[in-house]
């Protein structure tokens, strides 16, 4: 069943990702990305990372993309000014590089295909919590500083000067 779910989820994820990148309507972009992120959350669950799956939805779908949506609406859902690409080289090179990245990923896969997973792994909240407050405590605390800095930075950027 896991394999079937994966293929379903992968198909949904890829299609919605394409929609998220290619659609002209920014609201559709954001919503499609929500779907993609959902599929990634399911993939996490399939990989045994249940806490991450929940956090993925909570953080990305619940907060980050809502923020996107909020901004899109605040700016009046601006569509791109004109459809034409002003930089033909950019378009060609971009597509080529993206394809190259995908091919590179596939090449890596070819190297690891044979290996079997080391075993079932349950990324429960407890297991991750122990690591976060133990081995990675410094990074964990540092993230809080980063978030605070981002908060202040965002505030400063957006605040209107009186």
């Amino acid at each position, binding site marked *: 069943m896991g394999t079937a779910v994966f293929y379903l989820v992968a198909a949904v994820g890829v299609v919605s990702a394409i929609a998220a990148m290619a659609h002209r309507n920014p*609201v*559709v972009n954001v919503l499609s990305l929500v779907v993609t992120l959902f599929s990634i959350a399911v993939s996490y669950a399939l990989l045994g990372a249940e*806490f991450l799956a*929940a956090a993925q939805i909570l953080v990305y779908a619940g*907060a980050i993309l*809502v923020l996107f*949506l*909020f901004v899109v*609406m605040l700016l009046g859902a601006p569509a791109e000014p004109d459809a034409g690409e002003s930089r033909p080289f950019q378009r060609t090179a971009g597509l080529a590089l993206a394809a190259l990245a995908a091919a590179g990923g596939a090449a890596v896969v070819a190297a690891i295909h044979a290996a079997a997973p080391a075993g079932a792994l349950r990324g429960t909240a407890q297991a991750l919590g122990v690591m976060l407050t133990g081995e990675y405590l410094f990074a964990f605390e540092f993230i809080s500083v980063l978030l605070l800095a981002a908060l202040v930075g965002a505030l400063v950027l957006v605040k209107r000067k009186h």
Partner: protein
Amino acid sequence: MSRGLYLLAPMISVTVALMTFIVIPFGAGGDITIFGARLGGLIVAPDLGVGVLWLLAVGSLGVYGIVLAGWSSNNKYSLLGGLRSSAQLISYELSMTLAVLGVLMASGSLNLEQVVARQGGQFWLGAIPQWNVVPQIIGCVVFVVAVFAETNRLPFDLAEAETELVAGYHVEYSSMKFAAFLMSEYMNMVTASALIVTLFFGGWTFPGMGRFSGWPLLVLSLLSFGIKLAFFLWLFVWVRWSLPRFRYDQLMRLGWKGLLPLATLNLVWVGVAMTMGWIR
């Protein structure tokens, strides 16, 4: 603007409202066996290890319905309602999560069944049931207020705000689609009440339940849960007819400057109390 999104919005609202309920334990099965299987706790998804996280994660998706509705209606009132709603939900979700964290710390588990089990059966001074509301009264108040805001109920229904925005995000909706929105709102109300009960008021447990087992326990636990749920549903309605609506800036100030510090304070208090051994 986009018919697909316009139709999608109420669906999202209803789906999300329904999905949250699956992790709430609403009764005790005890040792009853049905069709050869032990009934255990009455809960839709007992194996979901992330329990409360699921609740928070899915609950946070409810905003999409409102925002999309507001935007796809192609109406200024709707858009404003949607915008207000998204900001409001993000703001209050923070306080709510922090309040829930206090309970989780005290319970030591993300699983709501465990949360409930921790609150049942024991008493302080022989009479006060060990519900989380007693040591964490601040957290409880914060949670209740935040939940009011999360469900877009008065006094926080800025997204609808008849007097300013006519009907806010669902001003353009009618028939079944409008009904879907209202249904989701009321379902959210039920879920929220159930959460308050589960997290702070001992869930389905009731004083003296140790003397019962089997079918009587099942019935009494359902009854206990139902009565508590009904009380908070009544509270929702009571508040709706008692308090006027906040202004938007007041709402934001309350959320960020009132509830957030209080929730943090609650968290600190729980941590200190647990370290000192005042609560289990």
